[in-house]
């Protein structure tokens, strides 16, 4: 098998160029999808027969929660690639994606809490999903804190990778134990995000929003990674030329 493409993928210069080319696509896709999804979800989707209009929060809560979980898995995958193949770009991806993941869990938690008020009558309920999301946020904090605490850049990336992998093995265990704990303590209450057979007018905008969130993540991640690559490669001639060109353009 030919692995050159894989190693090319690890080349910072290659990523910088390709990323620059992809960025507008992801950016525009995110903007359009988010706009369409929001308008559709807020104004056109039918209201829920039980929850009324508060259910419209689903169009940000669920995509953010999805994304927060996927990003954590992505961190672990990037960590594995970084540890096994010593790919520097994977290290960059890991450290740049973690804050975005933390913000996404924050959005999911906050919208969950706001949604909980009209649904359960309390700002915070120890619902299994919300609790798992809170724990996920703590896991993100751990990775970010560890990355900040270790001054050596390569060691920080490797340490975060190990932590992310340990975390990702733990996530299913945490999820199941929390769900099980929840059923034990408050038997089968009304679950906000599990709708039996949602009609298409309801889930189509949801799908659009999920896609929009993923595109948004891709765009922001590429932006952050390109900057970080430029910083790390500051000694390489292509990076010097690029910085010089950018500086002249802005001046």
């Amino acid at each position, binding site marked *: 098998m030919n692995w050159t493409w894989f190693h090319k993928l690890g080349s910072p210069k290659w990523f910088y160029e390709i990323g620059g080319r992809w960025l507008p696509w992801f950016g525009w896709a995110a903007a359009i999808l988010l706009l369409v999804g929001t308008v559709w979800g807020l104004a056109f989707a039918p209201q829920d027969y039980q929850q009324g209009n508060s259910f419209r929060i689903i169009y940000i809560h669920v995509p953010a929660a999805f994304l927060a979980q996927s990003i954590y898995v992505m961190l672990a995958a990037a960590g594995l690639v970084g540890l096994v193949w010593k790919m520097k770009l994977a290290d960059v991806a890991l450290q740049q994606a973690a804050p975005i993941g933390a913000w996404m869990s924050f959005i999911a938690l906050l919208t969950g809490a706001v949604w909980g008020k009209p649904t359960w009558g309390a700002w915070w309920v120890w619902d299994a999903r919300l609790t798992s999301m809170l724990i996920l946020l703590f896991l993100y*904090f751990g990775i970010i804190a560890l990355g900040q605490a270790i001054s050596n850049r390569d*060691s920080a990336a490797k340490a975060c990778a190990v*932590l992310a992998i*340990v*975390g990702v093995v733990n996530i299913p265990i945490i999820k199941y134990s929390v769900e099980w704990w929840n059923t034990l303590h408050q038997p089968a209450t009304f679950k906000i995000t599990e709708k039996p057979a949602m009609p298409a007018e309801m889930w189509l905008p949801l799908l659009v929003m999920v896609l929009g969130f993923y595109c948004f993540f891709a765009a922001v991640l590429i932006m952050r990674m390109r900057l970080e690559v430029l910083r790390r490669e500051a000694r390489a001639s292509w990076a010097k030329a690029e910085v010089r060109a950018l500086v002249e353009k802005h001046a």
Partner: protein
Amino acid sequence: MSNVFALLFRREARLLCRRPAELANPLVFFAIVIALFPLAVGPESQLLQSISPGLVWVAALLAVLLSLDGLFRSDFEDGSLEQWVVSPHPLALLVLAKVLAHWVFSGLALVLLAPLLGLMLGLPASTLPVLLLSLLLGTPVLSLLGAVGAALTVGLKRGGLLLALLILPLYIPVLILGSGALQAALQGLPAAGHLLWLASLTALSVTLTPFAIAAGLTISVGE
């Protein structure tokens, strides 16, 4: 290879025994935290009994975490870890011996102290076997997971708080299962299910975490 395991275990045991104060500190911490609660929530035995499963477990969890902060620090500072890394033996095996020795001397003592504190909180004697067994199965998981964090933070000047931040979220399943077992026993329900789950977590962590600990130490040593 198993020879080195036994030798390291003996050496760690000897080291721990020559510093008895450090062994006692987590135990005293455990007892003090438990004693704080009746002072904070009031001495009504009904209330104390109902919260005691969670209380004993949270206190045990914090005590284990506290004792782990320095797990690898002295080995890191005096160069022992470098010797482990350059040795022909798998690092995962060496760290397993180290963590096992640490658990036998601090975790086990914690487990043995717990029934006494349980009685003080008003746990009926019939639940004490479950308390003992749940801690016996759960504390090795706490030690092993905590050792991953200790390995990752060993090179940092002030790793204690960071260690807690990294590791406490990972402790949640053990906390849920352990206190769940005790709660079930308190309500007269069978606790075998919880204990079996705890046992499988123990088996899982004994097999997997040594590799993560070894990876963490290699990273910290290579910094």
